[in-house]
C-alpha cells in the first residue's frame, strides 16, 4: 500500500467520470424530472379547473331543469284550459246545432200542419156543402148559402 502513480490515474478517472456524468447523465434525467413535475402541476390545475366547471355545469343544469318544469306546468295548464275551451265550444256548437235542427223541425212541422189545415179547410167546405146539400136538398139559395159557408170556413 504505497502511494504511487495510481493516485494520478485515479484523479484522471474521477475527473472523466464526473465530466461524463455532468454532460450526459445528469441533465437529461433532471430535465425529465422537472418536466414531470410541471406536468403534474398542470394536471392538478386542470383537475381543479374541471371540478369548478363541473360545479358550474351542475348549477346550470339544476336551473335548466327548474325552468323546464315551470314551462311544462305552464304548458299543461294551457292545454287544460284549451281543452276546457274546446269542450265548452263543442257544447255551444252542439246546442246551437240542436236549436237549429229543432227550429227547422218545428218549422217543417208547422208547415206540414198548415198544409194539412189548408187541405182540411179546403175539403171541409166541400164536405159541408155535400152534407148541407143532402140535408136541405131543395130551395136553397146557392149563392147566399155559399157566402154563409165561406164565412163559416173562414172561422174554422
Amino acid at each position, binding site marked *: *500500500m*504505497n*502511494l*504511487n*502513480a*495510481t*493516485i*494520478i*490515474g*485515479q*484523479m484522471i*478517472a*474521477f*475527473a472523466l*467520470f*464526473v465530466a*461524463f*456524468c*455532468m454532460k*450526459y*447523465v*445528469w441533465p*437529461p*434525467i*433532471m*430535465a*425529465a*424530472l422537472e*418536466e*414531470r413535475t410541471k*406536468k403534474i402541476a398542470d394536471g392538478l390545475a386542470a383537475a381543479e379547473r374541471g371540478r369548478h366547471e363541473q360545479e358550474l355545469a351542475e348549477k346550470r343544469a339544476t336551473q335548466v331543469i327548474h325552468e323546464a318544469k315551470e314551462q311544462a306546468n305552464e304548458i299543461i295548464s294551457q292545454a287544460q284550459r284549451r281543452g276546457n275551451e274546446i269542450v265548452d265550444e263543442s257544447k255551444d256548437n252542439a246546442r246551437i246545432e240542436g236549436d237549429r235542427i229543432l227550429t227547422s223541425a218545428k218549422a217543417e212541422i208547422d208547415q206540414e200542419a198548415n198544409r194539412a189545415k189548408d187541405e182540411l179547410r179546403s175539403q171541409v167546405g166541400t164536405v159541408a156543402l155535400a152534407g148541407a146539400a143532402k140535408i136541405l136538398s131543395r130551395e136553397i139559395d146557392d149563392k147566399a148559402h155559399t157566402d154563409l159557408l165561406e164565412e163559416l170556413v173562414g172561422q174554422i
Partner: protein
Amino acid sequence: MASETLTSSEYIRHHLQNLTFGQHHDGSWGLAHDAAEAADMGFWAINVDSMGMTLLLGGLLMWFFRSVAKKVEAGVPSGAQNFAEWVIDFINDSVRGSFTGRSALVAPLAFTIFLWVFLMNLMDLLPIDLVPELAKFIGASVFGMDPHAVFFKVVPTTDPNVTFGMAFGVFFLVLFYSIKMKGLGGFVGELTLQPFGKWAMPANLLLEGVNLIAKPISLALRLFGNMYAGEMIFILIAIMFSAGAVMASLGGLLQIGWAIFHILIITLQAFIFMTLTIVYLDMAHQEHH
C-alpha cells in the same frame, strides 16, 4: 481461505498487497512479485487491481445511468428509470439541503462520488477470496505467472491511492471555486487575515492552512481507514475457517454479522464522502466573514 502452504501472516500480507506494475530495480518494467519489490518501484508504478476495479465499476455506473438517460421520459417511469430517478432525487435533495449556491457541477459530482464510492465499497461484501483466487487462477494459467505473486485487492477504497485521488480531486475543486468566487486576493485574505487580524498573519496562515489541508486528508483517510479496517476484519474472520470445525462455524456467524453491519458502513462512508464534498464546495462558494 488460506491454502495449507500459507501461514496466517502470509495470508494477511497477501491480501493486503496490491498488484503493482512498475519499473523493476534492474530497469525492466513488469509486475512486482512481492511487497518489497512493489515498494522499490517508487512513485511511478501503478496498482493494476485498484485502477482496473475503479474503472470497471465507474464504467458500469456510467453505462447504466447513461442507458437510462438515453431513453428517459417524463411520462410514467418504469424499471431502471424508477431506480435511477430515486437515486438522483435523493442526491439532489442532499445537494439542495447543503449547498446554497447555484452550480451545474456539484450535483453530478455528488452523484458520481456517492455511487462510485458505494460500488467500490460494495466489493467488500464479495467473498474475500473469490476474486483473488480467480485472479490467481487466470494469472497462473493465462499469463503463466507465479500463483503466489498474483495479488488482487478487490476493494479499491482500501487502497489509499484511490481515496486520496478522489479527495485531491475534490480539493482542487475547492481551491478552484474559492479563487473563482472570492478572487485570489480574497482567498489569500481568508487564509491570512483571520481569525486574529492582520498582525498575526503567520499564526493565521498556520491555522487556516491546517484547516484547508485537513479537508482532503480527512476525506481520504476516513474512507480509507474505515474500509481498510472492515476488510481487515473480513480477513481475520476468514483465517478462522482454517482452524477447525468449531472455529469455522463461529467464523461463519461472524462473517454474516460483520457483512450485515458492513452494509451500513459502506453506505454511510459513501454518504459521508458525498456530504462533506458538498459542504466543502459550499464553503468555497461563500464568504465567511
